[in-house]
């Protein structure tokens, strides 16, 4: 179809997701929408991380009876880092949501403007 390799396509997708996520963080006023943006950035970074470890025609780095050790494998370090990144991303999202709930209970609103303006 188009001549681009798989990993380049997915890196482009991941970068697009990162830009979209930052757009949500910068342009929305609702804190929950900002957190949605951060989780998009998370997914995008994981995609870029894994895609940059892809080797042409590589298979998963799991050896079994069907795979000979001299086959072409995908970089396992990137996969391991991405697993870590996803779990930490979930923790960060949980923390951010807890703070959002707490701010809502304090101010009765989720609008970021209410937390910075009019403090006097």
């Amino acid at each position: 179809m188009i001549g681009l390799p798989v990993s380049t396509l997915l890196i482009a997708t991941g970068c697009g997701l990162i830009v979209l996520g930052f757009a949500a963080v910068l342009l929305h006023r609702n804190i929950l929408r900002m957190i949605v943006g951060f989780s998009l950035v998370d997914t995008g970074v994981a995609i870029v991380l894994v895609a940059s470890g892809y080797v042409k025609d590589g298979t998963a780095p799991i050896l079994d009876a069907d795979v000979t050790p001299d086959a072409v494998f995908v970089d396992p370090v990137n996969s391991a880092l991405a697993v870590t990144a996803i779990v930490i991303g979930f923790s960060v999202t949980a923390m951010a949501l807890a703070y959002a709930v707490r701010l809502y209970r304090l101010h009765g609103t989720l609008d970021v403007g209410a937390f910075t303006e009019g403090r006097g």
Partner: protein
Amino acid sequence: MLDLFILVICGAILLGGILAVTVSGTLVASVSAGAAGLFASLGFLLLGAPDVAMAEAAIGSGLGIFIFLYALKKTGQSGRADE
């Protein structure tokens, strides 16, 4: 054939991201972000990283949406536009 599949997946990921940013209800936005994560896990599978695909499907999009829904309930936003 596989090329087409990859393009469809990339398009679905980006569509989920665009919906998550532009749509007006917070509930729809968080579910769209989760859908983007689910398609991303298909992408991980194509990139030869089934471990990451499993983690993303279970944690990133599964439990992620779960805590978003409870946070929405706690802040009294039932997903209607711009409360």
